[in-house]
């Protein structure tokens, strides 16, 4: 077993009567990229703030880079890097000035600061852009600069809170190349994202809902273990015409339009019945089983939770 960079057991946080985080346990190895997924308000940020030593847990414990979040919170702040979507770069400073400023905030100075800035610029590919005004750079570059500022002090654990919002596909790919580099250097990375195609890049994932972790595993495992139905791609000449009809069939759990095709979620035992009904419509069609995306898995799990809540009389 590889050494753990982050370990939490039964971590909980109450705000008055409201249980924001409810017995969360997780572990992240050094060198591992951990995707922390959940809707807005599910408890992601509260958990991260506890792990960063910014918020005291109501119950449970956690260790980050071998420091205890309850008793050694000050030390934790020095060994972690944090970057969020609303990264706070100084727009009217140049790239170099931002790097120097954040390096000093993290306690670097003199030749150490200078050499770290050079190293990080090389790693991220910021050489030659030193004198560019931050506010005038495209968002993909701002994001890389924000990451650079967060890793100047060589943190062992890096928290990335929705780092890639609104960035184009090529910049996103480049950014993930960087995250993999961090992982190769043996750092642990925790990422949150609303874009589940991005969660495919993570080694391990956990899905949090209403403060509790409801699913965990690698991307392939998640699809295998947490998506019980059959997802089918249906191609036919008039998809919009049969959409309403499909929705009324009892074995159909969901229908959505993808371009000129429909994606139909059919319950596990209902595949035969579904095929028969389709054939009885007398139209030409082709049907194939497809892999669910992580977004399909995520939505499915949350809908299941919502049903449970309803059954238990919660709203």
């Amino acid at each position, binding site marked *: 077993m590889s050494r753990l960079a982050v370990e939490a057991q039964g971590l909980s946080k109450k705000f008055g009567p409201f249980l924001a985080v409810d017995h969360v346990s997780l572990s992240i190895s050094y060198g591992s990229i951990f995707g922390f997924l959940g809707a807005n308000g599910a408890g992601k940020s509260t958990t991260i703030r506890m792990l960063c030593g910014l918020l005291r847990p109501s119950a449970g414990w956690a260790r980050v880079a071998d420091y205890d979040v309850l008793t050694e919170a000050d030390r934790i702040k020095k060994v972690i890097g944090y970057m969020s979507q609303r990264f706070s770069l100084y727009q009217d400073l140049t790239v170099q000035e931002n790097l120097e400023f954040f390096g000093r905030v993290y306690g670097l100075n003199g030749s150490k600061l200078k050499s770290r800035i050079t190293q990080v610029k090389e790693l991220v590919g910021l050489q030659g852009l030193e004198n560019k005004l931050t506010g005038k750079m495209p968002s993909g570059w701002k994001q890389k600069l924000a990451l650079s500022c967060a890793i100047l002090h060589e943190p062992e654990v890096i928290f990335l809170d929705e780092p890639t*919002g609104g960035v184009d596909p090529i910049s996103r790919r480049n950014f993930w190349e960087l995250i993999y580099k961090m992982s190769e250097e043996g750092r642990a990375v925790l990422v949150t994202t609303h*874009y589940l195609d991005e969660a495919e890049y993570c080694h391990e*994932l956990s899905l949090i809902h209403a403060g509790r972790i409801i699913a965990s595993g690698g991307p*392939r495992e998640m699809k295998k273990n947490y998506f019980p139905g059959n997802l089918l791609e249906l191609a036919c000449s008039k998809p919009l015409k049969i959409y309403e009809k499909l929705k009324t069939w009892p074995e159909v759990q969901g229908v959505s339009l993808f371009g000129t095709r429909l994606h139909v979620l059919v319950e596990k035992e209902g595949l035969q019945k579904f095929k028969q009904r389709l054939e009885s419509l007398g139209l030409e069609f082709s049907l194939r089983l497809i892999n669910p995306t992580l*977004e399909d898995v995520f939505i499915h799990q949350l809908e299941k939770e919502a049903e449970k809540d309803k059954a238990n009389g919660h709203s």
Partner: protein
Amino acid sequence: MTSMSDLVLKIKGLGKSFAGVKALDGVDLEVGRGEFVCLVGPDGAGKTTLIRLICGLEQADRGEIEYFGRQQKKLGSKERVRLGYLSQYFSLYEDLTVEENLDFFSRLYGQARNQELVERLLEFTRMTPFRQRQAGKLSGGMKQKLALACTLVHQPDLLLLDEPTTGVDPVSRRDFWQILFNLQLQGKAILMSTPYLDEAERASRVALIHQGRLLAFETPDNLKKQFAGRVFELITSDPQSWYKRLKSQAVFLDLQLFGDRLHLVVRPEVQVSEIAEFLINQGVKVEHLEEVPPGLENVFIFLINKSGGQN
């Protein structure tokens, strides 16, 4: 395909420069009734400029825009009210409730209070339980759904959405697709820009724009047919270190690393047996190797490289 009478928007040879820089360079595009067209491309490709030209917020240097089958130099007020525009920076009144925002925007369009419409929009966007909540107290996803509802109060026939899902969580995003899908069923036309290619998989047609030019305008299926390659999924232990070692191998046009697997892109004539042999010779312990359909991201990177790459 769309018949001529169903064309809601037709653009020919649209060009626009800002301070000598070509933002748009001869773009042709059309959107029909009931169609959902996605505009994708890197940052600065010209997506927002195109949408702003269609909304009449900017004037084109050259080219023509035809709205609802009528060609005109300037967007007239009759056509303007048939457009709904949601920008990246749409601002709601944070201290008004959900319902008050809807009412306010509907009055902006000179409409009398229409409770039935407000109810319908609340229902449509699954916001009914939150009608009394102040807009400022909504989550990012809910705000965006409310913003969409506000652009629908005057029942536009053509919706222009500029990166509407940025910062929206997956649950609200699903609602968002359902709303757009229902609008499509009603015969509305939608043009949406997005930086997320998995979102474009849902479109009737995808317009790929790069450096101000249209590289492709096709259904997602046809777009994938333009992709001259095959994608294989490789499952092996430690995909990350194999990614680094295989990246420089000429047989691979592109490599994509995921958390627990690799995607290998090869030329169309390469057979699975050749790849398997190659991998085994390299010392890869192949747990699983299977051809998978290309994603729009594969196509996107392929077409951009073909057009001369990204600068």
